[in-house]
């Protein structure tokens, strides 16, 4: 979570209002099931009450977790449907709100993952614009980063990048995702803009 922005813009009106939103109403808000007039009233309260805001925020996290566990496909995943169907999906892991698919087609193990392109990953991509990285410091950094994000990668012999990556600096820069496919100790990386 963006720590600076979270801290700086979360509701802080002292003293906090006491007529808190009822639990079921917070749940209805999260479900998107309130009418216009109620919606206005609740939002006014949420902008002034840390407690209710926090309960809603955490509830939305739980709903997102639930949705990710139920989702067995992502846009990228769909493009590999044929491959996916050929393999038996054994394990769907939920890591830090991101979906990681580990599946085995007998052997060898294939890992498919879509990760938010965060600063740590960007730094690794920005070292230079080589499209093939042989074993070495940069590959080790990538392995460590992927492990930190919960991917079960032990070592990589080669990393192949689909195209050179350049930093998008604008305040309006699109969200980017790193699509990864690892097979036979070779990782194929592709950065794509997310639709959302």
């Amino acid at each position, binding site marked *: *979570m*963006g*720590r*600076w*922005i*979270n*801290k*700086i*813009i*979360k*509701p802080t009106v002292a003293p906090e209002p006491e007529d808190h939103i009822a*639990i*079921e109403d*917070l*749940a*209805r*808000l*999260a*479900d*998107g*099931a*309130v009418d*216009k007039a109620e*919606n*206005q009233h609740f*939002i*006014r309260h*949420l*902008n002034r009450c840390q*407690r209710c*805001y*926090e*309960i*809603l*925020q*955490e*509830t*939305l*996290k*739980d*709903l*997102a977790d*639930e949705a990710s566990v139920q989702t067995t496909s992502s846009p990228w995943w769909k493009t590999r449907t044929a491959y996916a169907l050929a393999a038996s999906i054994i394990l769907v892991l939920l890591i830090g709100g991101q979906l990681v698919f580990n599946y085995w087609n007998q052997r060898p193990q294939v890992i498919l993952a879509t990760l*938010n*392109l*965060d*600063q*740590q*990953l*960007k730094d690794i991509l920005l070292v230079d614009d080589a499209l093939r990285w042989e074993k070495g410091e940069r590959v080790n950094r990538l392995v460590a980063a992927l492990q930190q994000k919960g991917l079960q990668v032990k070592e990589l012999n080669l990393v192949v990048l689909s195209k050179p990556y350049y930093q998008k*600096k*604008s*305040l*309006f*820069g699109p*969200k*980017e995702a790193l699509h990864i496919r690892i097979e036979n100790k070779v990782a194929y990386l592709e950065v794509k803009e*997310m639709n*959302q």
Partner: protein
Amino acid sequence: MDPEKILSSDEILEKIEAVCKRHFSAEVDQNECYVFVIDGLKADNFKRLRAYKGRSKLSTYLYSLINALVVDFRRKRYGRRRIPSGVVKLGKWAEAVYRLVCWQKFSFDDAFDFVRIDGLFEGTYEQFIREIAPIRNAPCRENPTFQSIDEHRGSSLQNIADSGSNPLEFLIEKLDRERRIKALKVIRETTEAFSEKDQILVRLVYGSDQPVSVTAKVIDLPASAARRRLKGLLTKYRERLLAEGIREP
């Protein structure tokens, strides 16, 4: 709905465990939180569970209820905690620094920025470092690494790595201290001038990293409209920041 059945389901018990883990890092706190939530659900013959009227999805109701109990548990716990008198003596700014570093696990460096933004401390960074000496030596059960600045830098750097897709956070991290403090003030003031709907939109999307589609539902807008709205709001932030002489380095 059978409250006893709900409370004996593994899924719900695991959920309570997971929510407590999300809120507390120390195992002892996680365990106390778990017991508090279970007690709260059982209290008065399952009053809180029986209050469900079927107007939201049951699972969403349970998530909200568990989170409400956890939030209340945390508030009770923090409310009981005292700030050491040696810190109180130094003034409001010192209490704020203690809360930020000991309870909320920010680094002293970050705490400096926050007390400057809130106008609680007017001096320079060097003065700040001198004056926090007694705070660093104050006891802090919640945060055993309280005295070390370096260890905290580590954790903030880790957080920085999470900001990839948040344009406001991304900007803030690129700025030096003086400009960061200025920019954060501008962002707060700009947000407060937005309409109620726009405020909650940016709070949830850029403050809490909720997906736009999820947030759109809360504010009763189609996702495409919420996205358009966010673009407009980002333009406002950018204009205000530029007007204050702040741009991406």
